[in-house]
């Protein structure tokens, strides 16, 4: 159980600044997701944590002990930070058990820690297999078990699910999160998949162009994003121009209670599509709209709508079949409060 604290971390590759002053705390025993678009510096952050790269400025402290920064660079093998790379990177010449035992000392290898972590990732009895005899998902599980085995201070997961197909990914994601939790490990998961970050992590850190834009619990990131970019990056967003006045905003959808911007004046308002309700006919508190399109996703659907003044919005509905067809005139209302930023 270790806390990791990054202060003002800067990493440059020639003229490119990959990390531009990152401040970040990873609480002990939790799984923190670092989320960002490709090229935002998240893999560089992970490589700096692991000690594969030297910092140009700033400091990394592990349990209060500085491991990087201020001229100090503790080499990777003395940091007790285990890595799970994208494709697993199992040692092809070692059996599953030998892969898992790689980070253990001789005595521990003979003990039952190898079997313990194998069971933890749901692969009890697979110790004698060779890596090439495993499926992609199983290889990834072994890579996680290998990282957990020596009880490292921190486990770094570098998009460990991206090479797997969607069906497998959800199950593996859940199992690995449980395995980390059962072992009391502190983890950092790097990903560009906002669904993955929101669903597995205890905390999400959004990275953009080498800087932390926002950090917090998944619900906060989703409901109270720091800016419109984060709002759009972590989920479907309806952004509306509005005028704020005394805790409420006048929008094309009527007056909506807002959080965030306290001042009055022009603001941008965020609604999530699930806050937009479609009702069959107009009644007080609704506005008329025309159905433009249906995007059916199986478990739910997004309906594109146009308001009378031409504003386009989307609504998330659960029962696609029961909704009005394209071209139909309906009415919409808004549930809950909206996040607002000064425009």
């Amino acid at each position: 159980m270790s806390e990791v604290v990054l202060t003002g971390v800067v990493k440059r590759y020639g003229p490119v600044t990959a990390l531009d002053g990152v401040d970040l705390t990873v609480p002990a025993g939790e799984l923190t997701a670092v989320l960002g678009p490709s090229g935002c510096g998240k893999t560089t952050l992970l490589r700096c944590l692991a000690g594969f790269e030297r910092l140009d400025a700033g400091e990394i402290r592990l349990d209060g002990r500085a491991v990087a920064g201020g001229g100090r660079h503790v080499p990777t093998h003395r940091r007790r930070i285990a890595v799970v790379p994208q494709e697993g990177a199992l040692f092809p010449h070692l059996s599953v058990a030998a892969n898992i035992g790689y980070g253990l000392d001789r005595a521990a290898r003979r003990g039952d820690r190898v079997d313990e972590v194998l069971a933890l990732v749901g692969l009890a009895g697979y110790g004698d297999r060779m890596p090439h005899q495993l499926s992609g998902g199983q290889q990834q599980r072994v890579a996680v078990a290998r990282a957990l085995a020596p009880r490292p201070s921190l486990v770094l997961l570098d998009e460990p699910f991206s090479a797997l197909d969607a069906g497998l990914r959800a199950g593996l994601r859940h199992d690995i999160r449980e395995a980390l939790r059962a072992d009391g490990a502190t983890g950092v998961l790097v990903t560009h998949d906002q669904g993955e970050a929101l669903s597995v992590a205890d905390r999400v850190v959004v990275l953009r162009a080498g800087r932390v834009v926002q950090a917090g619990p998944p619900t906060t990131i989703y409901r109270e994003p720091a800016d419109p970019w984060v709002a759009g990056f972590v989920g479907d967003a309806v952004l509306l121009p509005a005028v704020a006045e005394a805790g409420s905003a006048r929008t094309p959808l009527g007056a909506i209670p807002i959080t965030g911007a306290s001042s009055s004046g022009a603001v941008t308002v965020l609604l999530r599509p699930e806050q937009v309700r479609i009702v069959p006919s107009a009644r007080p508190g609704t506005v008329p709209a025309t159905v433009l399109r249906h995007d059916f996703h199986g478990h739910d659907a997004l309906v594109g709508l146009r308001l009378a003044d031409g504003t386009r919005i989307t609504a998330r509905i659960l029962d696609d079949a029961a909704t009005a067809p394209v071209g139909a005139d309906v009415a919409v209302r808004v549930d809950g409060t909206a996040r607002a930023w000064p425009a």
Partner: protein
Amino acid sequence: MASTAAVAVAVVPLAYLGVRTAEAGLDRIVAELWTGRVAWLSLRSLGLAAVVTSACVLLGVGSAYLVTRTDLPGRRFFAVLAALPLAVPTYIAAFAWVSAFDGLAGFWPAALVLTLCSYPYVFLPVAAALRGADPAQEEVSRSLGRGGWQTFTRVTLRQIRPATAAGALLVALYVLSDFGAVAILRTDTFTRAIFVAFDLGFDRTGALVLSSVLVLLTLLLLTGETVTRRRGARYARLGGARRAAARLRLGPARWPALAGLLGVAALALGVPAVSLARRLVAGVSRPGALAEVAAAAGNSLVLALAGAALTMLLALPLGLLTARAPGPLTTVLDRLAYLSHALPGVVVGLSLIFFGINVAYPLYQTTWLLALAYATLFLPLAVGSVAGAAAQAPPGLEEVARSLGRGPWGVLRTVTLPLTLPGIGAGAALVFLTGMKELPATLLLRPTGTDTLATELWTNTAVGAYAAATPYAALLVVISALPTWLLVARSGLLDKDDR
């Protein structure tokens, strides 16, 4: 630093050649160059290269298409058969033909023998390209209304053009640098003229000038190769899973196709095999034959071992650097090493003789100067193996190992070495076996009185003692068959992906 040393070894002969040639003075060089003989030699050498290369492209592309893209019966068998001529060094094939048809000599026999020995250099890359080519392009061409023949000429042939060009240039370089076959078949080309001028005429300046001209021709060809390679980048496939192309149904045309492949195999493999088998009994039963063969084999072994050891020592840093730190410097180092690979063995041998006499006299007439020649000749072979082996242990694996708490030495011992040693070992074996059958440099540089398998074959053939030469030839074929097998096994020709 170590890699620079390795490349220095590779280019010393070339640099030395230039220096010594320049020392002869401009007048002398011009006098040597502007003779009817040099013009005649150039014509013959280039003519031979052109004839053999065209024939190899025809044979290589044709048989590659037949075995990879048609329903020809026994195509996997023919695929192996078409690669096997690589196991017959050209001087042994030439010897076998001379021993079968006494008095065979001249330009066209040499062209025939060289074609039969070197068409696998076109066949192997083209077969691999045909297997790897994206069948979707042919399907698109068909769907746009092009017939089978038009699709073949407009799409398929263009897909394999980089592979064909690379193979053809390899053949051309090989023909220019070949010494054994043209010498045994008494065809005057640059290599033979260089050897004769030096060995019989003691005409150093003449030999040096001729060598320089040959190096220039080689450089010209290499430049051509670089240009095609650069163009080849445009043909890279754009993602997508590998899928086998539909096979062409030959119908009744399969009989002439079969007859053609069988005929080529009979000429390329059958004639040498029958010719060697016929004389082997007589050769082995001569008094003292076995002792002589054993002594020569022992010498070959020692020389090849020394060569392989030196070559691997130099290749290790260069190969690791090529695999781990690709950059402009590595590319230059890599190219320089390959340049020396294209140098004819005669030229390398000759320049090392002058180098030995004038610069490193203690090495002259020792095993080590010959080992240095092998290192110069086979460095690219070894560097390729080392770089391939290093790719087996990608940096990602080492990073994971470090993150699990192992220090640099622990990682080297438990991850890097176990993964790379097999490939490095295979590379060393390849260099060793190739060194066993090397002829021209060995002829020029062997310590006096040291006879190897290749030189004994040469000496006996020169005096027409074919029976006495046969045991050496047979043993050399066996030795050359091993690396060929490795090559065939790696090329994927044996993979079962037939539908």
